[in-house]
């Protein structure tokens, strides 16, 4: 990866990060911080932007890892159904209004739901002592349908106020972000990223096929299991921080490969930074378009992401001819 590209990435990401700190419903002048503005910046903006960055990085890396380990350019963290379990569990908490754990209820419910589905998908994708890519994908799709049906059932029988909050959360709701959640998210996301970044060579080898990975000295079954665990950790933590934001996991790794090539030792860290910056930007747009109303970031990412996704489908050489 060239130094110029690296420099551009760093400058762009830092600019988006700073812009989303200081712009929005109220513009904050960083050179003249006073009482209320300082308060908004430190206790609302900063945690929110950090959560957005963490979530976006986790999704970007998860997408890059999944597309590699499943050898499928259309894989993303949600195709494994992890989001559907998180959404169902979180919606259950929101709709029933059962705040057993106070403000931690939604994040913990989401994390619980995501973990349960990860384990189920892993169990269904497991055959003869290994995770099989096609089985994992199909198990994820199948479980998604089941959990989304249950989610719709839950929404259709619940009260009006509960529905609106649940729907907002499903599309990604960063307004619940605050400092207390960040340490938990950080632990899971950083562990997942550590596994992914430290094993980027194994991911490259897996992309050549299991037999060549074996010849190059990697155990395909062990590597795929480790990558699956790291993706499950990152995705579960991400949805529990701010809902199920789509398209970053699918879109960001493709753009990254398009610009810098497919070597995962660069793709994974660059996807982390660009995914983080992309979600910060989407969140900034979402809360700037029509304040005080906030458009969920998941809608912004999808509105930008869907057309690009369709463009990629047409432009075959990105996916390999």
């Amino acid at each position, binding site marked *: 990866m060239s130094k110029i590209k690296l420099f551009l990435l760093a400058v762009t990401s830092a600019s988006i990060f700073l812009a989303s700190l200081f712009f929005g419903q109220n513009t904050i002048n960083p050179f003249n911080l006073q009482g209320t503005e300082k308060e908004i910046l430190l206790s609302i903006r900063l945690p929110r932007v950090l959560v957005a960055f963490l979530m976006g990085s986790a999704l970007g890396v998860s997408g890059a890892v999944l597309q590699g380990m499943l050898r499928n350019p259309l894989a993303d963290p949600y195709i494994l159904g992890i989001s559907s379990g998180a959404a169902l569990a979180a919606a259950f908490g929101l709709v029933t209004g059962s705040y057993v754990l106070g403000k931690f209820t939604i994040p913990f419910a989401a994390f619980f739901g995501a973990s349960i589905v990860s384990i189920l998908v892993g169990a269904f994708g497991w055959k003869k002592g290994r995770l099989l890519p096609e089985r994992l994908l199909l198990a994820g799709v199948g479980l998604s349908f089941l959990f989304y049906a249950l989610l719709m059932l839950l929404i259709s029988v619940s009260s009006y106020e509960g529905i609106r909050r649940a729907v907002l959360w499903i599309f990604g709701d960063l307004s619940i972000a605050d400092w207390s959640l960040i340490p938990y998210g950080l632990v899971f996301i950083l562990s997942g990223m550590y596994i992914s970044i430290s094993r980027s060579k194994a991911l*490259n080898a897996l992309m050549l*096929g299991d*037999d060549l990975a074996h*010849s*190059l*000295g990697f155990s395909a079954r062990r590597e795929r299991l480790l990558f699956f665990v790291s993706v499950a950790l990152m995705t579960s933590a991400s949805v529990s921080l701010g809902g199920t934001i789509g398209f970053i996991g699918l879109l960001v790794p493709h753009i990254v490969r398009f610009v810098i090539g497919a070597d995962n030792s660069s793709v994974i860290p660059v996807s982390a930074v660009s995914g983080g910056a992309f979600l910060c930007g989407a969140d900034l747009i979402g809360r700037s378009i029509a304040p005080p109303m906030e458009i969920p970031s998941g809608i912004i990412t999808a509105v930008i992401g869907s057309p690009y996704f369709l463009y990629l489908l047409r432009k075959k050489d990105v996916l390999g001819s």
Partner: protein
Amino acid sequence: MSSVHNQPILELGGVDFRYFRTEPLIRDMTFSVENGEFIGLLGANGSGKSTILKLASGILKPSVGHIKLWGKELASYGNRDRAKLLCYLPQLLDINVPFKVRELAGMGLYPYDIPPEISVDEALDLVGLLDKSESYLANLSGGERQRAFIAMTLLQGAGLLLLDEPLANLDIKYQLEIHRLLKKLKDTKNISVIMALHDVNIALQFEKVMLIKDGRVLGIGRPENILNRDLMKEAFDVSIEIRKQNGGGTYLNYGDNP
């Protein structure tokens, strides 16, 4: 160390292989590869060539029997240690990977912390791809892609290469050049090769061929001894045999010509 010279690199003893509850694909396979040997593995489609190479590379585990690499059970090697001694190149025709030639070739160095003496540029030069080192594999011809994988194999630097139809997609020029290149490596670095083939003409250039059918060895030895009318008939169900020309060369005689 004196025993090393006489020790076979690879040894299969009484190996059977079957997938769960199916007929065995490999039956009672016993052979060994000595240091510096070049073996052409010849047989009809479905005779078990690929399965033998996958067993020998440790991808498949024998249902019965043993496989030894340098006198030690193959399965007892760590993945990276094995990768430094043994390299397997599958039939690559369908592989579509998003890497550049240079990136792919460089993956041959993955088993090493300290790269061996050969550089990526040298390896690409040897297979004639130096000018395409920055091209994406998807944009290469089938033969060029094959050579990029062979460059990776060269960088991996293992002493035993298990190659599944590596010449299948190549122009005759590169078939000959890769063959020559492997021969040169054999002479300079003492590598050993088992190469699955289905082209009898190429098999003629090997010092040793192994003819198989239905997962069994029909014969191992010099091509002129093994590729005789009877065994060829049994292996391929065609009438074909090697004839010697008066000038000393060999050629294939098809059909029942006298």
